[in-house]
């Protein structure tokens, strides 16, 4: 990158001498940063992981797999002692995936939450356009006390240093024991919050919950007389899809081309793979072109909804709900949502496929991205930082505790009713509780679907089966400046070409050349930065 920068600057130097020189210097500076920073990254001792034992799940997970709960524990225990707040208002800015909740005055849940936290929570919520809101708020310099930081913000390390509280002393190693619910977050999660050798925030975990594979309408598949749809290889899978497709009645097996699933069959890496310190991007693997060929075959076979390329995921879910399509590649979270969306549909069942090898044997499954966001604390906040961490600890209370029950479901009788021991959120509860506090801090997710222990058991069995096949993104926790500024743009070019190849508008042979361009336009640079970062970490 610095080469490109300086070459261009040199070209313009004649016209704008001074400006070009300053352009050069900034280019060099960035280069230096990348090197130093990773060195620092690994000097930090991550918070010591201590799984909270206060609640015993029926189906125990581990630091990777999710705990499964068949029902909500009776008489949930309280793990905190007294309100963590300091009586002064705490402001929090966050992105939420739902509608805006009623304001404090009309919101009993919010009022009760303030009482239990011991500080008034002042919320600035946004559900669409958070990136813009975040950028302007940062630019204006008036950040709230607690901030939802997206993981893909450009130049994240320098942003963190400029604006947010360094948490290293407070959380590193055994120091985290002060905050038992935060200690309940595994080291893998914390790695995503470390930049320049310091801990800058609290991870809001997703990981396994976000791992995606084909979800399918088990009821419709069974109605076709297929008892065990699990494919043994790609050919078997394609045959299954063809069997489930009936274009004449406008039914397709897939909502979109499951290219990632095919890539899993071919053992293609989850984004980046690493071997002996050398990094390879999935695009560069030989099998990638093969996966495109196979995806194209699926399009030609007509087993994919023709609007699959131009429709967003939310709209595509309707196709699954209505049986227009059988398969959608989605996550464990979506699995639950399909049930919620179809409570009225008699016999509606969703299951998830495992991944076979392309030519038989076993495939791989890509681990879901570890973090939803990082929660960071404004450097200039008037609050004592330990107070804010205590509030975060309160918010991170794990599934099965009394704190969790209140945070997610409010007060019994007001926001939820109990069905056995399962809390069922009522209308008021769902409207009032959407304050986005799960992004303040959250425990590792749990497998749980009230009233449907059978589904939880199926989910648990699925994740157990997945475990040996899980592959991780080797670039996770390694910061690359080029990736942060140019990654999306050069990847965008390839993903555009990929679509055109799948649609048959471009030949598969165009792929190799495009990957070469990708390397030149920043791919190699990113690789270099990642390898360097990896070397400092492990060397």
């Amino acid at each position, binding site marked *: 990158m610095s080469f490109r*920068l300086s070459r*261009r*600057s040199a070209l*313009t*130097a004649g*016209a*704008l001498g*001074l*400006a*070009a*020189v*300053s*352009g050069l*210097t*900034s280019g060099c*500076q960035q280069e230096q940063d990348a090197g130093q920073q990773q060195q620092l990254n690994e000097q930090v001792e991550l918070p010591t992981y201590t799984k909270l034992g206060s609640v015993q799940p029926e189906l125990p997970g581990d630091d990777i797999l999710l705990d499964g709960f068949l029902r909500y524990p009776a008489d949930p225990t309280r793990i905190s002692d007294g309100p963590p707040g300091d009586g002064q208002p705490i402001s929090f800015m966050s992105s939420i995936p739902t509608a805006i909740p009623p304001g404090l005055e009309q919101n009993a849940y919010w009022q009760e939450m303030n009482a239990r936290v011991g500080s008034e929570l002042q919320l600035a919520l946004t559900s669409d356009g958070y990136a813009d809101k975040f*950028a*302007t708020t*940062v*630019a204006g*310099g008036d950040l709230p006390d607690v901030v939802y930081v997206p993981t893909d*913000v*450009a*130049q994240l390390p*320098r*942003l963190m240093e*400029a*604006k947010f509280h360094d948490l290293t002393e407070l959380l590193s190693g055994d120091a985290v024991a002060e905050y038992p619910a935060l200690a309940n977050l595994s080291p893998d999660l914390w790695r995503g919050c470390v930049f320049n050798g310091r801990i800058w925030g609290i991870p809001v975990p997703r990981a396994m919950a976000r791992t995606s594979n084909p979800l399918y309408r088990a009821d419709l598949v069974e109605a076709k007389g297929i008892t065990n749809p699990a494919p043994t290889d790609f050919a078997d899978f394609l045959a299954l899809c063809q069997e489930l497709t009936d*274009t*004449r*009645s*406008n039914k*397709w097996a897939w909502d979109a081309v499951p290219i990632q699933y095919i890539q899993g069959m071919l053992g293609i890496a989850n984004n980046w793979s690493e071997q002996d310190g050398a990094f390879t991007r999935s695009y560069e693997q030989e099998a990638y072109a093969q996966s495109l060929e196979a995806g194209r075959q699926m399009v030609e076979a007509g087993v994919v*909804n*023709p*609007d699959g*390329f*131009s*429709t967003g995921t939310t*709209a595509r879910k309707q*196709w699954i709900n209505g049986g*227009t399509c059988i398969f959608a590649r989605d996550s464990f979270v979506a699995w639950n949502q399909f049930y919620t969306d179809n409570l009225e549909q008699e016999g509606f069942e969703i299951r998830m496929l495992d991944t076979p090898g392309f030519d038989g044997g076993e495939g791989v499954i890509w681990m879901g991205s570890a973090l939803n966001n990082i929660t960071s604390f404004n450097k200039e906040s008037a609050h004592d930082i330990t107070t804010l961490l205590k509030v975060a600890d309160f918010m991170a209370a794990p599934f099965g505790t009394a704190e969790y029950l209140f945070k997610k479901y409010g007060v019994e009788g007001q926001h939820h009713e109990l069905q056995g021991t399962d809390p069922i959120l009522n209308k008021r509860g769902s409207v009032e509780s959407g304050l986005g506090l799960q992004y303040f801090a959250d425990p590792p997710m749990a497998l749980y679907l009230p009233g449907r222990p059978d589904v939880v058991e199926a989910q648990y069995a699925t994740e157990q089966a997945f475990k040996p096949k899980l592959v991780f993104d080797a670039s996770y926790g390694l910061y690359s400046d080029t990736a*942060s*500024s*140019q*990654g*999306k*743009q050069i990847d*965008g*070019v390839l993903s*555009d070409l990929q*679509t*055109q190849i799948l*649609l048959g*508008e*471009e030949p598969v042979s165009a792929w190799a050349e495009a990957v070469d361009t990708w390397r030149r336009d920043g791919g190699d640079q990113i690789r270099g930065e990642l390898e360097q970062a990896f070397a400092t970490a492990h060397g």
Partner: protein
Amino acid sequence: MAEVQTRPAPSESQSDAPRDSSPPPRRRRRPWYQRLWRDRMYLLFTLPALLIIVVFHYLPLIGNVIAFKDYQPYIGVWESPWNGLENFSIIWDGDPAFLAALRNTLILTALQSVFVFPAPILLALLLNSLLSENIKRLVQSVLYLPHFLSWVMVVALFQQILGGSGLLNNFLRSNGYDAVRILGNPDTFYALLTSQVIWKDTGWATILFLAALSQINAHLYEAAAVDGAGRWRQLWHVTLPGLKGIIILLFILRLGDSLSVGFEQILLQQAAVGRNVSEVLDTYVYNNGVLGGNWGVSAAVGLVKGVVGVLLVLGANKLAHRFGEEGVYR
């Protein structure tokens, strides 16, 4: 035509024009302070709007210096390092993708000038010729509705109806016909974009032309009728000249915007069609700058577009004056 000419903005032909072109019977021009004093009331009239524009437009416009900087929100506009013309390199490094985007932008602008721009004029004339006031109002109120749909909705509706699994194609398939590929098809993409714009905004855009039509002096029609002018000649000699000013004005303003075509509309439909066909200048900047948090790049391209716009507007305005029109200003 001369006899039935509408009063072509009387003020302009009598006052401004002579000052610019022909040597006027030169009144001695009063010194500036006298003119200032004479016009104090009118200048006061301009103050509120000027204040708003200066504070909320020109003041932040200074912030566009980030076009020459490597700006990041956490650093601050003034503290960010200068990077010369680096942000502009997106424009002149000759990237084929950029050239394609420029080409597509120009094609679409041309298409829109030819098909989208005249549509509301024709519709306004059609509505204007209706006899029944009630029908006219009803039709008008129906046709302006799509303006209130966001692009997300328009695109979704088109998809539901014309998409590969939309109403039309589902109908065709269930009756044993082949589906037609209208959406996501590079060959029909421009036609699709153009018809979406027409569908969405034509009704709404008639409003201005209808207002202009209402300004035409009815005596002109009477006079034309007395002279024996029929329906079409009245249209040609009275109606169109009456609309000419506003048409030219709007066209010039549209020209200033030549390099912007349907950003959101295109971004929403880009995935399936491919960038080769669908990338336009604004989406290119988005995909290559904004997405990577590169604020300077979009400021830089904004500046260039502004300069191009100013040149086009000034040029077109000059041209309009050649033909004796007021244009945007004189």
